[in-house]
């Protein structure tokens, strides 16, 4: 089997139907397991009791622009902080994850010489649904 290489440029995602391709420089879906360990007479036994996913996004800030994604995120954080937003994350063609994220406040501001950036860490509700 030939070596497969996919890059961050294969990634695309939408949050609430808004496409982030123009602004996002990084997007990562990370899942963690809470795994309990039990010491039995036969040795160690393991049991996963919970899963927690986060969706991390790094993006160039676009405050003030028409259709600003930062302003959309701010508005939804203000108006519906506890309501999940439909998110579709494509890691590469043929690997799509669908899930809901809870709103997260975008940061504002930055250092003088550089483009302003925003780091977001979204809490994912439940376990993403995959389509491979």
């Amino acid at each position, binding site marked *: 089997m030939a070596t497969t290489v996919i890059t961050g*440029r294969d*990634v*695309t995602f939408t949050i609430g139907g808004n496409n982030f*391709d123009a602004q*996002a*420089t990084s997007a990562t879906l990370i899942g963690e397991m809470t795994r309990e360990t039990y010491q039995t007479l036969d040795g160690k036994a393991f049991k996963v009791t919970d899963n927690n996913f986060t969706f991390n996004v790094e993006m160039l800030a676009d405050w003030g622009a028409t259709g600003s994604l930062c302003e959309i995120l701010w508005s939804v954080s203000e108006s519906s902080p506890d309501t999940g937003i439909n998110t579709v994350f494509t890691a590469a063609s043929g690997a799509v994850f669908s899930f809901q994220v809870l709103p997260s406040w975008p940061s504002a501001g930055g250092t003088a010489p*550089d483009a302003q950036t925003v780091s977001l860490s979204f809490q994912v509700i439940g376990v993403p649904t995959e389509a491979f």
Partner: protein
Amino acid sequence: MPNTILDTVRTPLATAFASVAGNVYAYVPETPMVPFVVTVPDSPYLELETIGKSQIRTKINLVISVAVAYNSNPASLDNLEQLVISVLKVIPAGYAIGAVEKPTVTQVGPSNVLVADIRVSTYYTQTN
């Protein structure tokens, strides 16, 4: 009409410099006339920093070279500093401005010029 880097990035930058006291070029001319301001690629020139492949979006690193005649060192440096400041004042929104490199003496044609480079970067999206 294609939205080339020349049309959408370098020429608008050169247009913004219309008010500065120097000859402005969006590319390197064969024989620039001092004092001059010329926009040239930096290294790395293009960086693909955003996700997605549906469109080519790239960070563009440019150098704005600002040059004055090198006749007398104190006057040349003063002239260069004034030209650099006037350029910094008119760089349009959407450009990140980096460092201004130390002035160097460069030979352009038969004469010496004092040149300083201003590093800037912006983003370009190919739309057609």
